[in-house]
């Protein structure tokens, strides 16, 4: 028997140092004496910059440089840290002659202190000519709408990109014949749903530090989810060779997609190159709210034809996404609203998905945990609830009847991927049925649904939602790992994967330890350093456990094979006679043993001298979905519209949980983010497009005192293509809270809220409009 590591809830390897405050984040290790970088932002939603006069600022003692459109590279690029070629359009410059939202960057000062930089920014004289602003996505493509981007903006993949009509992306797929399908239906359900913009609100604001090493290379320390993409994009934007840049990600204070954007690295690199000095750029909380990235607001229209036996004969989904001033993730988030949602009910023969991402003069959208699926599932799960009620069946039973199962596929997998066609796949692991049963039991579905129990004037109701996500982007995402053996039988493991606090460093160690049958403590991991670790696309698309984990598993398996050969030579027996046990090989015939330490010693100091090292990369032809059922019990005060979530339950099938406690933590964090977004978080704008609540205290994010009791269940399945049966878990649980709560509100007070957020005022109005109570 060997050591077990997979399936154990080990403490995260960096947990104690983080609690003690000794584990360093970017701002903690910014070089002393670095120049401070500060931005000045547009006060106007849309304007042309006529002139910038920085002379007074430059005359201020302590100011090293001022950067603006007149003195910076004009490379068009996308800040979206995606694979190459990026599916997001090249519509962004370091500084542009045009500003496109309140909060767009106008210029930047490098100075000896933040105070001097801020004073200098005020001294810069800027003349602008206001342009008509576009705030309504519905009218963005209409004739006469203000145009945001010029002809030079372009897509770098074959895509339907049309800046003349403010179209950042368009998607269209059709399977079967939806018109004919609607004909067959006994009834048709049509509804429009809207989801709202949101902030990632990671506790650590965006931050980067940059310096030159002795050989004149750039070292960029960055709070990034994508060190390798940050290196590539910085190199291209500034026109400097990629190998002259090293990107290191230290500990990072949460990402959730916001740090999949290359927002600061090229600026810091440019400032360092130009001044020859180290630089640091740490955004304030307000800047992080306004001028980084957000969840794309989306309007989703669903139209379904349904037969009285419950079968859906046709489904049409149409989505309009507001990408804001720039098209970061404009195509792929949009695609995902269909691609991650529509395969779930896989027996719908006729379906279509049409979508359009449009530019407006709003803050910019980007990757955000859930990535379009969140928006799509808000619509889908309420629609299913409506259909089940029309049919007079329990939505729990309805979902169990129609969801995709093991051994099944959906034509949507092949028709729609992330920004292009997808990849056909068969679902090889799915415990959604059990997730639904366990979630329903946890919430007390049988006793509570349709009961409208009143406690102290509050009416209780329950609702549910089911979801799937993916595990990485098939045939695009790649992770690499290398490993070497030391003379004490320990190993160094280097991975490009990026731990955002999710615990990926820990679970990758667990995977390697399991394969090698050694205690996890014998594996020292180094991650996210573009000089020292192999490539990895980074932490997004729920890829790390599945893709990077696959690379680690294969790397460690190869290592075991190499060590077996050395062990067999040492014991003078054929390799096949060796039994791999905890930290050793034993000759199954003679019981002679050689320890890993013995093997390590031999390879470095004795007869078998050769540094044993292995390297592996992993990609996947499929993206096995994790599945999830979430249930909400709410209490609504019908007099005021006040709402409370009384209990929230999540049951998730993520295959094998490599570290169950960390997997639960992913689900809990995502679920509360989803709940807080559904009920309270929102962006408020002035008429001129200024975000007026850009601070934690006014944004609405839940505290521990606001959070409802939550139950989280991991429901095991085994994904044959994943490392030790694992699938992803990081994103999925943010998708269900909004629709589950909306469905529970309907159950309680009979009003259907199709627009987020689900505020007391909206609930109150809906109850009044319905003529109740």
């Amino acid at each position, binding site marked *: 028997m060997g050591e077990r590591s997979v399936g154990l*809830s080990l*403490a*995260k390897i*960096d*947990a*104690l140092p*983080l*609690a*003690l*405050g*000794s*584990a*360093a*984040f970017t*701002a*903690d290790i910014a070089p002393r004496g670095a120049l401070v970088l500060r931005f000045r932002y547009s006060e106007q939603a849309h304007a042309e910059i006529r002139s910038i006069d920085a002379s007074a600022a430059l005359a201020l003692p302590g100011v090293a440089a001022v950067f603006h459109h007149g003195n910076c590279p004009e490379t068009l690029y996308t800040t979206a840290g995606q694979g190459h070629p990026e599916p997001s359009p090249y519509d962004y410059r370091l500084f542009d002659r045009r500003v496109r939202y309140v909060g767009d960057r106008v210029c930047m000062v490098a100075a000896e202190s933040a105070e001097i930089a801020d004073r200098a920014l005020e001294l810069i004289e800027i003349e602008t000519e206001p342009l008509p602003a576009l705030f309504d996505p519905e009218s963005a493509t209409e004739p006469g709408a203000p145009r945001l981007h010029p002809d030079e903006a372009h897509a770098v993949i074959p895509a339907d990109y049309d800046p003349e009509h403010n179209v950042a992306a368009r998607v269209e797929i059709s399977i079967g014949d939806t018109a004919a399908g609607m004909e067959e239906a006994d009834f048709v359900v049509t509804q429009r749903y809207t989801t709202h913009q949101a902030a*990632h*609100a*990671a*506790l*650590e*604001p965006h931050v980067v530090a940059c310096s030159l090493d002795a050989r004149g290379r750039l070292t960029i320390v960055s709070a990034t989810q994508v060190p390798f993409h940050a290196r590539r994009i910085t190199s291209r934007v500034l026109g400097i060779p990629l190998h002259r840049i090293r990107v290191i990600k230290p*500990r*990072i*204070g*949460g990402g*959730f997609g916001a740090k999949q954007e290359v927002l600061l690295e090229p600026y810091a690199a440019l400032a360092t190159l130009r001044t020859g000095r180290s630089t640091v750029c*740490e955004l*304030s*909380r307000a800047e992080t709210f306004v001028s980084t990235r957000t969840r794309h607001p989306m309007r989703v229209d669903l139209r379904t034809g349904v037969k009285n036996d419950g079968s859906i004969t046709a489904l049409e989904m149409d989505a309009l996404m507001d990408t804001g001033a720039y098209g970061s993730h404009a195509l792929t988030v949009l695609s995902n609203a269909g691609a991650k949602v529509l395969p779930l009910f896989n027996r719908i023969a006729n379906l279509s998905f049409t979508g359009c991402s449009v530019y407006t003069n709003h803050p910019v959208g980007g990757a955000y945990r859930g990535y379009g699926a969140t928006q799509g599932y808000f619509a889908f799960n309420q629609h299913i609830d409506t259909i089940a009620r029309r049919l007079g069946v329990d939505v729990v039973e309805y979902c169990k009847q129609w969801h995709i199962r093991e051994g099944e596929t959906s034509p949507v997998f092949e028709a729609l991927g992330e920004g292009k066609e997808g990849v056909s796949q068969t679902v090889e692991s799915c415990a959604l049925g059990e997730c639904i049963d366990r979630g329903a039991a946890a919430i007390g579905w049988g006793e509570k649904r349709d009961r409208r129990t009143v406690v102290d004037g509050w009416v209780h109701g329950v609702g549910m939602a089911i979801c799937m996500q993916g595990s990485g982007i098939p045939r695009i995402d790649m992770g690499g790992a290398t490993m070497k053996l030391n003379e004490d039988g320990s190993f160094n493991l280097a991975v490009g994967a990026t731990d*955002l*606090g*999710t*615990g990926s460093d820990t679970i990758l160690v667990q995977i390697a330890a399991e394969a090698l049958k050694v205690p996890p403590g014998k594996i020292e991991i180094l991650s996210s350093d573009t000089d020292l670790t192999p490539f990895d696309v980074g932490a997004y698309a729920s890829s790390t456990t599945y893709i990077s984990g696959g690379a680690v598993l294969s790397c460690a398996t190869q290592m075991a094979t190499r060590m077996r050969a050395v062990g067999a030579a040492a014991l003078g027996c054929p390799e096949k006679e060796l039994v791999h046990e905890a930290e050793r090989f034993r000759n199954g015939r003679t019981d002679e043993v050689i320890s890993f330490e013995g093997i390590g010693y031999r390879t470095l100091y004795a007869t078998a001298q050769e540094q044993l090292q292995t390297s592996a990369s992993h990609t996947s032809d499929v993206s096995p979905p994790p599945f999830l059922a979430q249930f909400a019990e709410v209490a609504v005060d019908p007099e005021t519209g006040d709402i409370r979530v009384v209990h929230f339950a999540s049951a998730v099938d993520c295959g094998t949980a490599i570290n169950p*406690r*960390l997997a*639960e*933590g992913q689900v*809990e*964090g*995502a*679920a*509360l*983010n989803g709940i807080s977004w559904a009920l309270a978080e929102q962006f408020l704008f002035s008429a001129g497009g200024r975000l007026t609540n850009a*601070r*934690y*205290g006014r944004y609405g*994010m839940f*505290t*521990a*005192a*606001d*959070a409802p009791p*939550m139950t*989280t269940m991991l429901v095991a399945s085994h994904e044959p293509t994943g490392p030790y049966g694992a699938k992803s878990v990081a994103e999925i649980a943010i998708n269900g809270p909004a629709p589950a709560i909306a469905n529970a509100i309907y159950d309680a007070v009979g009003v259907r809220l199709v627009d987020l957020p689900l505020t007391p005022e909206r609930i109150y109005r809906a109850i009044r409009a319905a003529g109740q109570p």
Partner: protein
Amino acid sequence: MTGNLTVNGAPLLIDFDPEETLLDALRSAGFTEVKRGCEQGECGACLVLLDDLLVNSCQVFAATAVGGRVTTTAGLTGEPGVPHPIHEAYAATGAVQCGFCTPGMVMATFALLSGNPDPSDDEIREALAGNLCRCTGYVKIVEAVHLAAGRMRDDG
């Protein structure tokens, strides 16, 4: 301006501007375990004890702290690098994800348990309501506080 204070038991001479916050002074003196999450008193990442009182160090002038005793998460046991049962409980329960909120959470926990060795769920959630966490959903943080409280009671 300059002034003396005690940080984690050791004397410290700081050099600061009149407007400078305790947060900035501590961070520039190398106490980077005190985190900057908002500088608006709304996230709790910068919590420290100032003379046994829990304060958001971003909301206190460095000048105010002169002559005072500051304790950060790194100073809870009085021995550098030696974890307190609260640290251990946070690590063991999975209450640390990105860990950016943790130094502040730990301080709020310490303050709570100093006055209430066996808090209820609701008391914990109230006591931590000034500390934001985006990663955990607070479930395992509440669990960590219970675990730490139990261990501290056992240790007397």
